[in-house]
């Protein structure tokens, strides 16, 4: 790990920023763990988005003008919109590590070999069906900020502000925290959705390349192929969550979680301190001004279509006998047969929609009402055909390629043609 610490004071900048944001994560954890003693720790997503949220509020609240003169920390030197696997992460600039290093990764790399008292996080293993997945326990208590207080880089007021932000964060569950951490404006959400669309498209291309180059190998060793299928599904799912179009089916979406978070933080009876509330209002747009904005709303259909497509293709394959004991299949075990069949039905409906008829605001009701005529692509092979082994696996994969190509050409490419893919 090397962030080019030859630059003067750059290590201190990164370290101090990590302490400041780490403290907010600690306060979140502190509050949550008291309310929910069974909680073992926080996921990396949760912590990453908690810190992104804290960064937004810090940047808003800490006006550079008087602070710089007094030698107080103002800018944390962090880019809030570094695009990583699933979109915006906070990152430090690095002239060496491909341009950017996510803040959380920096903190964890410093933790390696460090004593417990000085770590940013302690790691606790958590068993999932597809293998162990660590959760993190934030460790930066207020005591660790004392060097910054003593050197007058921070004031007592700053620390209290951070304490209040952290306490506010502890009111939110993981989904609400992730949503409000990663969304704040319509333009930002739009960029994030476009990022998922473009990444999905890449993974689809990689998947079919892999299959065509390893077709016989897959039948005996399907694990690698399962991973590709899982990745396609995960990007499609994230995209659909961000557009809000999954809400009607699963009751779950970023929009809903964001709205819940806003209500918990800003409603009349909320225990959040006034200054923090004002800062949140200044930084976070309302739910409707994000998801009803045309920039976001017009992407609803694309998000839904790729999700249906991945549920059908990845879901059907990973539920089949060949892939049943792979890690990819275990990750998707919550996607049951009925959801897959419903996904197939919705996909058929999507395939009847012409590009020129894509609605400004997409809902599933709209799709059911407007899905007339025959699908524009062959949809004759069903999930049951694969599961009953009426259709061989490779033939199924080949069949789904045409569906993917149609969706990419008609619903994805028109949106993502100007996205730069060089950031990750």
């Amino acid at each position: 790990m090397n962030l080019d610490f030859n630059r003067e004071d750059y290590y201190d900048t990164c370290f101090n920023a990590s302490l400041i944001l780490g403290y907010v994560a600690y306060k979140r954890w502190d509050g949550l763990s008291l309310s929910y003693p069974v909680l073992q720790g926080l996921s990396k997503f949760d912590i990453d988005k908690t810190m992104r949220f804290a960064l937004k509020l810090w940047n808003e609240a800490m006006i550079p003008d008087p602070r710089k003169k007094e030698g107080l920390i103002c800018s944390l030197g962090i880019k809030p919109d570094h695009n990583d696997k699933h979109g915006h992460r906070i990152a430090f600039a690095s002239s060496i590590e491909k341009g950017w290093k996510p803040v959380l990764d920096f903190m964890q790399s410093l933790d390696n070999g460090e004593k417990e008292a000085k770590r940013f996080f302690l790691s606790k293993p958590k068993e999932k069906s597809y293998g162990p997945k660590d959760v993190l326990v934030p460790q930066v208590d207020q005591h660790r900020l004392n060097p910054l207080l003593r050197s007058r880089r921070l004031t007592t007021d700053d620390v209290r502000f951070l304490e209040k932000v952290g306490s506010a964060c502890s009111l939110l569950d993981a989904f609400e925290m992730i949503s409000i951490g990663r969304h704040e404006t319509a333009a930002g959400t739009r960029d994030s959705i476009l990022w998922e669309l473009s990444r999905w498209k890449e993974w689809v291309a990689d998947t079919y390349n892999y299959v065509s180059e390893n077709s016989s190998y897959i039948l005996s060793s399907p694990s690698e192929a399962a991973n590709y299928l899982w990745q396609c599904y995960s990007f499609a799912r994230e995209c659909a969550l961000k557009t809000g179009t999954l809400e009607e089916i699963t009751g779950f979406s970023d929009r809903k979680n964001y709205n819940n978070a806003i209500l918990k933080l800003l409603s009349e009876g909320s225990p959040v301190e006034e200054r923090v509330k004002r800062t949140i209002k200044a930084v976070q747009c309302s739910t409707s001004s994000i998801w009803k904005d045309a920039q976001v709303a017009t992407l609803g259909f694309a998000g839904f279509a790729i999700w249906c497509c991945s549920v059908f293709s990845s879901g059907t394959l990973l539920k089949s006998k060949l892939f049943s004991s792979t890690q990819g299949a275990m990750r998707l075990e919550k996607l049951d047969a009925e959801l897959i069949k419903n996904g197939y039905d919705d996909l058929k409906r999507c395939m009847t929609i012409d590009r020129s008829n894509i609605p400004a605001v997409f809902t599933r009701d709209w799709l059911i009402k407007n899905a007339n005529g025959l699908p524009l692509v062959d949809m004759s092979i069903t999930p049951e055909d694969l599961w009953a082994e009426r259709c061989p696996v490779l033939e199924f994969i080949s069949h789904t390629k045409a569906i993917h190509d149609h969706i990419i050409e008609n619903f994805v490419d028109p949106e993502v043609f100007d996205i730069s893919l060089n950031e990750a």
Partner: protein
Amino acid sequence: MIISSSQSGGDTSSSIVRFLNAALSKTEPLWIVATERKGTAILRTYSEAPDALFQAPAIWDKVISSESLRRMSGEDLNRGTILIVDEAMFSGRGASNAIKILVDEKGVEREKIKIAVYAVHENASEAQADFRWIGQLSTSMYRRVREQILGCFQQKGSLLLDTEHIEISVGIKCGRSEFFRALCRSGVGISHETTAGRLNLTINDPILVGEKELLLKLPKYATIRNAVKKIRVVERMEDKFAIIPIFYPSIPKETKPDDYSIDSCLSALLSESDQDANFHVVGIFAALQLFQTVFMSLSELMNQNKVDPVIPEESLRHMKALFPTINLKKLHAYVQNFRELGRTTKAKKLLSDKPVHFDATTASENASLLNDIHLSVIKELASAMDDYPRKPKGLTIGELKKKLFAEGQPFSRIELAKPLLGAALDRAIDQADIIPDIDCRVFDDGIERVVRTFRIDGEIVLSDARRITTLWTEIDSLGNSNRCHNRGE
């Protein structure tokens, strides 16, 4: 004799070591009388340094606390040179009192008594220091040097907090918050910081296993009502803490050893006539029961090898300063027994599932309230000295609670204020603003009992406290709610 006259620069800790090395090697004392509490703290600072000529734990065989001089026989005391050690001398009253006891009561020859004081005020007249490191200090310089010495004690780990208590050392291999949380299952915990930046945790009124059985072993009419009962956790180094349970039941003014049914390692220390000694013995006995609570709270972390409580016999040797005849082997075995009891007891179900832990460290919201309570305690104790000029023995915790929390008082409606009082007292002791003492009080039931009190520590603090109190009164009378928190400014 001035061993060295360095008033500025240099590490205070290494100066203390050089000073005491010289004083001890010149006098070769048979006994070292440490004036409570800072004399003991300075000896501890000294004896734990690698370049000290007289190291811990062996040095504790020579040390007598000024509070336990009367428990020694004149014959024993007269057998060699006695060196009285203190960190600073303002008027010299502390040393002078010790000399009075030694010469007038114990018949020690005055020539055999030497005094070593690190810093001496220009007006010190009641006793003459034979050895000093810095002398002729003006009041402002005396204050500054005193602050440096206190800073040194705090850096070493709040040494003023533990002179008469048993402590265990705990190395942690888990996060600090996980360690604190485990302990806070036994009572409301307040974390706070010393002025040297060390983290401390005070757990108020922790649960006690076998409360009824405890009282049965004490004399009739002993009570734990309004008794000081807490667990102190003090950061000594990164990842290393000392845990010090503190518990002082109040005992009737007149008791005999036969009135007690405590373990023989402690009952042997009871006195027919010295009720202060009996009070301390009861304090040790009661505190030991709290060790069971400590080990109960830590049992899960111990099972996971995340904490490693260590109780070497040497860690108990400082108890000899207060109880020169104490059987350390038996005491050690007694303490070890609680470790196993705590791990295995079924009483673990008494522990709370939800630890209650409040952060009152420097910049936290609770820090101002802690500060306010700390200053209010000093104000009340300073007033108490004015109220009782002939008997400056301080206030009990019950009296302090009444003054601070009764209806109409500033903290009466603040729920957090009560647990913060324990932390405020610890902070005040750690900063040498106040000192614990012993006195008698007549309770509501008409019985006079020996109780723990707290009083202002020394002339400098009293003078500062009076100045703050005056300023406060002026501000209050102007109807201004802003308070000056700068002591001595």
